[in-house]
């Protein structure tokens, strides 16, 4: 049993930071929330109805960026984003260029992603947060490999999203400097002890 007795309710405008030591189940909790894994016991409700019964509803409202973010090294930043957006809501080329500029990747649109650094690849994935994203964001270690400025920009972007009525669930070991009004922390390590 990874965790038990976990009771949690999240509303629009909130940001939940899931913390805890390595192996405490942060990623598993996130994967349960986005329906990639099924809980062995207990249930997850979306607006009062079991998650398993409304996969489409969840898919339309949620954006998931995992530790491996689905960026193909052989495709360019632009091609990667065009495909990832097409899976949810197709985006125009101008929007994609604007999103890449917003994450500081202007001039890297046509470069195959395997030639980019880890931080730049992370920025490509995070550019999706600038492309007309759905309200619920579930992000696993979004700050990995980002530089100081990138971290600050992302923190601000996440806080803005929450204050505009969005909902963010994320895992990170780093303590956030820019907190929105609806910030909460869940420490899976402390609960076990």
């Amino acid at each position, binding site marked *: 049993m990874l965790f038990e007795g976990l009771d949690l309710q999240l509303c629009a405008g909130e940001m939940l930071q899931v913390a805890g030591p390595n192996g405490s189940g942060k990623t598993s909790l996130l994967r349960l929330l986005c329906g*990639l894994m099924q809980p062995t016991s207990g249930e997850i409700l979306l607006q009062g109805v079991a998650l398993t019964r409304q996969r489409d509803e969840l898919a339309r409202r949620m954006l*998931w960026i*995992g530790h491996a*973010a689905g960026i*193909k090294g052989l495709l360019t930043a632009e*091609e990667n984003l065009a*495909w*990832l957006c*097409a*899976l949810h809501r197709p985006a125009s080329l101008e929007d994609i260029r604007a999103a890449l500029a917003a994450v500081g990747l202007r001039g890297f649109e046509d470069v195959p992603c395997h030639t980019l650094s880890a931080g730049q690849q992370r920025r490509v994935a995070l550019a999706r947060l600038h492309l007309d994203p759905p309200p619920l964001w579930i992000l696993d270690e979004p700050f990995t490999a980002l530089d100081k400025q990138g971290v600050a920009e992302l923190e601000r972007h996440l806080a803005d999203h929450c204050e505009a009525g969005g909902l963010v669930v994320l895992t990170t070991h780093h303590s956030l400097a820019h907190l929105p009004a609806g910030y909460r922390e869940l420490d899976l390590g402390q609960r076990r002890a």
Partner: protein
Amino acid sequence: MSNVFTLLLVREARLLFRRPAELANPLVFFAVVIALFPLAVGPESQQLRNLSPGLLWVAALLAVLLSLDGLFRSDFEDGSLEQWVVSPHPLSLLVLAKVVAHWLFSGLALVLLSPLLALMLGLPAHCVPVLLVSLLLGTPVLSLLGAVGAALTVGLKRGGLLLALLILPLYIPVLILGTGALQASLQGLPAAGQLLWMASLTALAVTLAPFAIAAGLKISIGE
């Protein structure tokens, strides 16, 4: 929804053409295996000719299997599959596009290469149309069934051998029908019966396999 299907085809085509070695490997394997038999069995034309239906089909079957081992691996490792699962589109449609793209660029090439290798084994020219049609109908079945195995073994570090053990028994009907059609045509008999059976297998695989592949991937991802 069909738009996503086309976009995925284009994406897969781009990926395959940026890694041409992976396209060439199964073809070279197919050609080399066929070229080994005259060396091993002896160049007597009558013997090779009688063996050729079986040789061609077994070599094609192994070449398809070889190419399928990595079908979902890179998408699994870089998180692309997770994005497919959480998208509003049915996973079965997306994996069908993936397998179709894979077949278009490796299975179809194998079919087109086969007449050359068949003539090398001394298969009479009047059998070549039957060979082409049987492979054209049979290789999609091989790709789809193999993709079910690839989906189930994608999370394993060395899934290659397990994939072969899982999938080869399922290839038996295709092998029997394919070689049967070719044997019949070699003896001057009509091959339409076997080919129609094969076509029904193709229709069955195209309709049902995508669901099995999607279920296999969800199991692999959910672990």
